[in-house]
């Protein structure tokens, strides 16, 4: 048992529970629960987006990927950031203007068919649960390593905490946990980056020169192609990264927590600065870990490199810094899983229960109660799945969630906002084909099938050659939406599109 780490973990639990207590007093109706009443400022929401987005996969995963594979690990940092241009230019403002609580609301602003809302909500729950399993598996491994608590118990601790934040504090608690986590993560990463930079004599050229000899990869560490040797696989990965963010439901719902499109825009700008600075620093984390911890120790702690950042903290600042960085990683995980629970619970309670089952007639009290029960349900399902997924690679699950989001959600979002002729049939085809092709291609990919025993879940030859499905499934989602539209005999509802066009571009007719 690492005592400083234990105390700092308790500190984080204590602070977040206090936040939840105060947030619970504000969480009286559905709007407060789902969107914090839409009252966040641009700066607050920008921090919360950053806190929602920079997950354990970013912090632990990318640091490890850069440390072990050099340039190829950095692809993640680039894609995760450039993705915000897609959000800012194409999605954020129309989304804020058209939706109320969930991503399905936005699609429903054009189409009344209940099954569209149902499919959109199903995609939300599926993507969020994939993402959540990844975070819970990471959390379990981290706590097990640091505090010596068994994997099962560790996952349960995180699972209970995330459920408590959401049930009692709703979006208020979730947002503030994310804001505080963003501050801690930026602070911790900056501290380590400065220490690493000092060790390289404050010289970028020195740093690169030393990296040529610091790892077993020697000079090729600095060149692309260590991990991604197949061109189309690299492009597929990059497609999923850059297009996935704009389809991730837990990021999309953050735009409903601000009062108007203008604030949504400014929050993306703040978030882009924070996230960009963070991803630049992943170079220091990765290089530092490779140089000062060493390849063999990183791999010994975790074959995927997930412990590189905490180990680097230990090498640089001893046990206290190790404990601090580990606690930051813990806070990172808590903030992200809380956002995911809230997003899936909103889809279940708002879309399935209120809009579909009660035809929009549920009382405020019923809605909030349902949202709380849905939070418990989603958490329980995720915890059970995470307990069975202990051996799965965390980065793989996250990249799967990104690819599914890009394939199943992005086409329908883009068409809803920008394509006049788009209709109900096209929307359903886009969502179903995107979801099934993305998941299906992963099932027959090298992540699941490998000829070598122990390298993947099953032994066998993969039918699909690439590790990420994006290059096939994202175009399929778009093509399905297009063909589904032109081959159906429904006429486009021009009046409805005009309404969407006016609302999404001007905010006219939008309350609060």
């Amino acid at each position, binding site marked *: 048992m690492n005592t400083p780490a234990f105390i700092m973990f308790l500190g984080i639990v204590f602070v977040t529970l206090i936040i939840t207590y105060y947030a619970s007093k504000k969480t009286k109706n559905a709007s407060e629960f789902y969107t914090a009443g839409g009252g966040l400022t641009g700066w607050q929401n920008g921090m919360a987006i950053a806190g929602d987005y920079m997950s354990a996969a970013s912090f632990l995963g990318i640091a490890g990927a850069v440390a072990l594979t050099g340039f190829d690990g950095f692809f993640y940092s680039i894609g995760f950031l450039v993705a915000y241009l897609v959000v800012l230019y194409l999605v954020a*403002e129309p989304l804020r203007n058209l939706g109320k609580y969930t991503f399905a609301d936005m699609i429903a602003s054009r189409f009344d068919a209940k099954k569209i809302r149902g499919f959109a909500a199903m995609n939300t729950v599926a993507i969020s649960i994939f993402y959540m399993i990844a975070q819970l598996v990471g959390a379990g491994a981290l706590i097990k390593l640091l505090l010596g608590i068994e994997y099962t118990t560790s996952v349960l601790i995180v699972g209970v905490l995330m459920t408590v934040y959401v049930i009692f504090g709703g979006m208020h608690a979730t947002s503030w946990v994310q804001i505080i986590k963003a501050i801690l993560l930026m602070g911790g990463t900056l501290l380590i980056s400065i220490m690493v930079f000092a060790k390289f004599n404050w010289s970028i050229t020195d740093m690169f020169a030393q990296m040529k000899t610091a790892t077993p990869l020697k000079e090729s560490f600095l060149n692309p192609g260590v991990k991604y040797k197949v061109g189309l696989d690299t492009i597929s990965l990059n497609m999923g990264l850059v297009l996935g963010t704009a389809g991730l439901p837990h990021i999309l719902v953050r735009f409903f927590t601000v009062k108007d499109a203008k604030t949504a825009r400014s929050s993306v700008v703040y978030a882009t600065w924070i996230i960009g600075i963070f991803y630049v620093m992943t170079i220091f984390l990765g290089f530092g870990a490779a140089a000062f911890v060493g390849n063999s120790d990183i791999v010994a702690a975790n074959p995927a490199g997930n412990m590189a950042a905490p180990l680097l903290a230990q090498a640089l600042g001893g046990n206290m810094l190790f404990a601090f960085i580990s606690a930051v990683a813990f806070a990172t995980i808590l903030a992200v899983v809380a956002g995911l629970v809230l997003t899936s619970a909103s889809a279940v309670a708002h879309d399935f229960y209120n809009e579909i089952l009660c035809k929009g007639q549920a009382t405020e009290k019923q809605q909030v109660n349902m949202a709380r029960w849905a939070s418990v349900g989603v958490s329980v399902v995720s915890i059970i799945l995470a307990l069975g997924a202990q051996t799965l690679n965390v980065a793989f699950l996250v990249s799967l969630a990104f690819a599914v989001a890009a394939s199943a959600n992005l086409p329908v979002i883009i068409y809803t906002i920008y394509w006049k002729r788009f209709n109900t049939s096209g929307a359903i085809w886009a969502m179903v084909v995107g979801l099934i092709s993305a998941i299906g291609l992963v099932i027959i990919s090298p992540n699941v099938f490998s000829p070598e025993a122990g390298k993947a879940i099953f032994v066998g030859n993969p039918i699909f050659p690439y590790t990420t499905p994006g290059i096939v499934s994202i175009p399929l989602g778009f093509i399905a939406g297009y063909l589904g539209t032109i081959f159906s005999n429904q006429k486009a509802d021009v009046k409805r599109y005009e309404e969407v066009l006016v609302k999404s571009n001007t905010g*006219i007719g939008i*309350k609060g």
Partner: protein
Amino acid sequence: MEARKTKTNSESDYTSIVHSPAFQTLLSEKKKFIIPTTIFFFCFYFALPILTSYSTILNHKFIGSITWAWVFAFLQFIMTWVLCMLYSKKAAKFDELANQVQEGGKD
């Protein structure tokens, strides 16, 4: 439910707004900026993995041991921040045009 009530009242309003000159100006200004910029950033972004996968041109040295691949990677960050600021600036103009649409609608 409220939204549904107001919708039937204002359906014709939306059509008239769409056909108003102010709204058409807003749309065309937005298109003129957003479409080319979006095409640009996708090309700039995918140029990196395409170049690293199908050529070794980025493995040449820039300064010391720093290769062009890292320079190009860093430029992706600069590009993102610059386009982000550019969008905010342009959007202020779009807001003005949107206000004009709104005022026109009230007459």
